[in-house]
Structure formats: structure tokens, C-alpha cells
């Protein structure tokens, strides 16, 4: 704690911290309030009297009902879930193998390959999306989940690789050496000894990859066209707006519900998220 008078604690600590937390969380609160606020209250100009923006006395589920009943929201959720899970599995698998190779094996070009994976950051999605759209179409993957399932790993694998490399480095080499002396091949030692011990890392990588997939936007926007194929971010952006009119109620409901899967996983695995962020930064 900060040494000194109580007022100092308040001025230098509690108040700034409080302001930070408030500012960081307010938009989510706003999302929640708007979701359950009836249209009549929603569309009152802010200068009108009796305006109580911060809460509502007549919560309603009509926006959520509209969202789930009249739009393809549930389809989008399903799509996003499927794509995120499969892309995560692919990426963690590749990251696991590549991370092991980079941190444990000696082979020519190890340095270049490691740098190469790092260099993929030179080409973010917003640089590649136009030519990639062409390629996706040529492979006949346009407007299918596969367009995303196969392209998401491009930015997920590097991250998973670094994260897992950090975990592997912390596992003593003697474990594998002992396994190999005990009679295991390199492959078996890797699978039966190293991977089980790296499970916390695998979990962190998976959770992070899932979150990043859920968050991806531009590839989904460009590669998917039919409403039934869209993911949650794209669907919410394109289908809940008619012309210039924003249906704020369902829109906020969509934003809220669309955040829930990630928020749920987050709440169970907070430590793994933090470990993931710090691992990526330190590694």
C-alpha cells in the first residue's frame, strides 16, 4: 500500500483506479442496458427531459427475441463457434509441433525458420486480404467456413508457437533425455512426456487462439457473402442495419450475446489469459 496519509491513498490510488475501471467497463454496461431497454425509451433525444440513460425501469426482452427469432443470429453464432474451434485446433496443433522443434531440436535453418514465423507479422491481414480473396475464390472456398478455417491459422500459429516455446523452455531437458534412455523414441518422448507437462501452455494457447478467431473481422467480411455463412461480427455489422437505420436494440443485443462465449471462457480461465499475454510478451 502507499505509505502515508489516508487522503493520499484516496487521491493517488483509489480514485485513479476507480476512474480507470469505470471508463473501461462503462461501454459494456451501456451494452447491457441498451439491450433490455424498450424502443420507446431508446429513441428519446438526449436533450429531452426525464431522460434516465443509466438505467431503465421497464426492462424488456424484445430485442433479444427479435435477434434470435427474426435474424440469422443463432446461425452466425454457430458458424463462429465452429470456425473458431476448428481453427484453434489446427493452430494449436501446428504451434505445438513447431514450437517443440524450435525450442528442442538442432537442425539447419532453425534460426531462419524461427525468424520466418516471426516475420509473418510483416504481413497483417489488412495487407493480404485483397489477393487472398482471389486465391480463396480460385480454390473454390469462397463463402464457406473453410475459407476462414484455413486462413485464420496464418495469424494464430505464430502466436501459439511463441507461447508454447516459452513453456517448453521451462521444461527441463532431462525429462526427455531420461525418457529416451528409458526406451522411448524422440517422438514418443515428445508426445508422452513433454506435451503432457506443457498442458497449461496448451490451454493458454487454445484459449487465446479461440478469442483471436472470434475477434477476426476483415477476412470474414471479405470472404463470406451469403447471410447464412456469416460470423457474428460480420453478421451484426451488415445485417442489423437497413440502409442508414441502425436497429440499436437488437444491435446491442447482438453485441452482448456475441460476446458471451468469449466472456464465459475468459471468466473460467483468467489466469491462462494473463499467462498468455505475459508469455507472448516475454517470449
Amino acid at each position: 500500500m502507499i505509505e502515508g496519509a489516508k487522503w493520499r491513498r484516496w487521491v493517488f490510488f483509489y480514485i485513479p483506479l476507480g476512474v480507470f475501471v469505470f471508463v473501461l467497463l462503462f461501454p459494456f454496461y451501456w451494452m447491457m442496458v441498451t439491450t433490455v431497454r424498450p424502443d420507446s425509451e431508446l429513441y428519446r433525444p438526449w436533450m429531452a427531459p426525464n431522460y434516465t440513460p443509466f438505467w431503465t425501469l421497464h426492462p424488456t426482452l424484445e430485442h433479444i427475441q427479435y435477434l434470435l427469432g427474426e435474424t440469422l443470429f443463432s446461425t452466425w453464432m454457430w458458424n463462429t463457434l465452429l470456425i473458431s474451434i476448428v481453427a484453434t485446433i489446427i493452430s494449436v496443433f501446428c504451434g505445438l509441433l513447431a514450437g517443440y522443434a524450435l525450442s528442442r531440436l538442432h537442425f539447419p535453418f532453425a534460426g531462419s525458420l524461427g525468424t520466418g514465423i516471426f516475420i509473418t507479422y510483416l504481413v497483417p491481414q489488412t495487407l493480404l486480404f485483397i489477393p487472398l480473396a482471389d486465391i480463396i475464390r480460385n480454390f473454390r472456398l469462397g463463402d464457406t467456413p473453410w475459407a476462414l478455417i484455413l486462413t485464420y491459422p496464418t495469424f494464430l500459429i505464430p502466436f501459439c508457437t511463441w507461447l508454447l516455446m516459452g513453456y517448453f523452455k521451462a521444461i527441463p531437458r532431462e525429462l526427455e533425455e531420461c525418457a529416451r534412455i528409458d526406451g522411448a523414441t524422440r517422438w514418443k518422448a515428445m508426445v508422452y512426456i513433454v506435451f503432457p507437462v506443457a498442458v497449461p501452455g496448451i490451454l493458454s494457447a487454445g484459449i487465446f487462439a479461440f478469442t483471436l478467431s472470434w475477434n477476426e473481422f476483415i477476412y470474414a467480411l471479405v470472404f463470406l457473402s451469403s447471410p447464412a455463412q456469416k460470423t457474428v461480427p460480420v453478421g451484426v455489422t451488415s445485417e442489423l442495419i437497413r440502409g442508414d437505420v441502425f436497429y440499436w436494440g437488437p444491435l446491442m443485443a447482438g453485441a452482448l450475446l456475441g460476446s458471451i462465449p468469449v466472456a464465459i471462457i475468459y471468466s473460467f480461465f483468467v489466469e491462462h489469459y494473463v499467462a498468455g499475454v505475459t508469455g507472448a510478451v516475454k517470449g
Partner: protein
Amino acid sequence: MAVAYVPTSAPAERHSLVSRLLEDERWLALALFLPTVVILGLFIAYPFVEGVLLAVTDAKVGVPGHFVGLNNFAKLWNDSIFQTAVWNTFWYTGVTTVFKLALGLWLALLLNRHFKGKAITRAFVLLPFIIPTVLSTFAWKWMFDPTFSVINWTLYRLGLIHGRINWLSDPDLAMISVIIVNIWRGVPFYAISLLAGLQTINPELQEAAAIDGARPWQRFWHVTWPLLLPVTMVVVLFSVIQTFADFQLVYVLTGGGPANATHLFATYAYQVGIGTGLLSEGAAISLAMFPVLLIVVVIQLLYIRRVETH
């Protein structure tokens, strides 16, 4: 009871060719790397080359292109919207990074103390980073809405303004709004990363400095900050690349407007390439990001190398 050596009673292991090959470090590494190399090659290297080729043609949607050399880039050079986008992107990246670093650092220092509910607070603080950007940006868009903005309402009630603030429809304000949302979204990432860095600093160093007579600010500047530098560098460089290539935020908040005032490289490339179907010009705009990204990544690599050889 002497336990003598007994030849193993298990059947001798016959090693298949594959098994023997994989015992060799080099073959094993090849096998392990294969899936990654295939995916990255197909979906990064190949499109990159395609993109470069595209940018030197005049292809449009449905119309194959002919080689036109650097025409597209010349066009862009004289395009006022492109110039705005370039300026915007640098300005956007620069300002947000400075603020994210400062605020993130402050928040990290606050979170580094021990207080009740620390874990929960830390968990909540990370939320803007976890929730999908597009969705939280919509919340901000609603908060900025000219007619129904809650921010305007609050400021009005507090007597700070008398008319509405056109957060998103005034060109200058729109840029500021976009910057605000980016900072809001980025502070948690900076804070948590810097917090991790802070936690690796031995508290005894601070205590020794205090005993030596250093005041809080001096302790920070001379003890904490230098030790935090490696983590800071990594975070900043990482974030700069992400921010420079940002798309989602501006697309949702303003679409690049009003009147193309808030375009960044990415959103303009989208508008030109996908929106109006001028594929090659869109590709050129995207590619224009490359030199800057290259410089940043090279700096990062050099820095890492320097840190590692220390």
C-alpha cells in the same frame, strides 16, 4: 539378494524406417514443421506475391489486368484521399501509442499494489481486450450517436456543453473519437503486459533505492523504468504494427468518413479494392503499408538480438 543383469525378456524392438528417420533431429524437425510451413506458405507467402503482382497491374473485379508498372502507386501519390489516409494512419498510430503507453503504465503501477479484490479488478480490466473489437466498437458508436449520445447527455447535464457534440460527423472530432476508442481498447493490453514486467522486478531494488534517499518519481525513473524497458519495447512494437494496420475500429465507427476524413490504409484499401472493385489499386494501397511495417519489424528483431547477446 543380488539383482544380476538379465537380458531383457521383452521381444526385441524392430525399428521401422519411419521410426528410425524420426530419431534424427533434422528429419523430425522437418516433419514437425511441415504443416506450419504449408499453411503459412499457401496463405501468406503466396498471397503476398500475388498482391505484389496485382499491384502492378490494372486488374478490376472480373477484368484481368495488364502490367502497368508503378502506375497505381503514382496515382495514389497524387490522390488526396490517400494522402489523408497516410497522414491519418501515422497520426493515429503515434497518438494512440503514446497514450496507451502512458495510461497503461499508470494502470499497471496501480495494479501492482496489493489490495482487496485485486484479482477481480485485474480480470475486469482486461475485458475491452477480450471482447470482440467490432462488438465493443458498436457500443461506442451508440455512445457517440449524435442524437442519442449518453456522453453528450452527461456533459450537458454537467453544464459543460450547450449544444451537441458531433463526435462522428465532424471530420476532426471523428478522428479524435476513433483515437479515443483505440486507446480504450489498447490500454488493458499494455497494462497487463507491463504489469507482468513489473512483477519480475525485484522489490528489494526499490527498497534499496528508498533507503538511499530516492523519492518515488526518482525511484521510478532510475530503477523501475530501465528494468521495464525490454517488456515495453516488445509491447510497443507489437502494438504499433497492429494499430498501423487497423481496420475494424474505423470501419465500424465511421467507415472512413465523414467525407473520407478518417481513412486509414486498411479502410481505404477496402473501399477502393472491394467497395469499388478496383482490385489492383486496392492492393497497391495495402502494399503501401509494407515499408513501414518492415522498418518496425527490423527494429524489433535488432532489439531482440541485442537483448539476447547481452
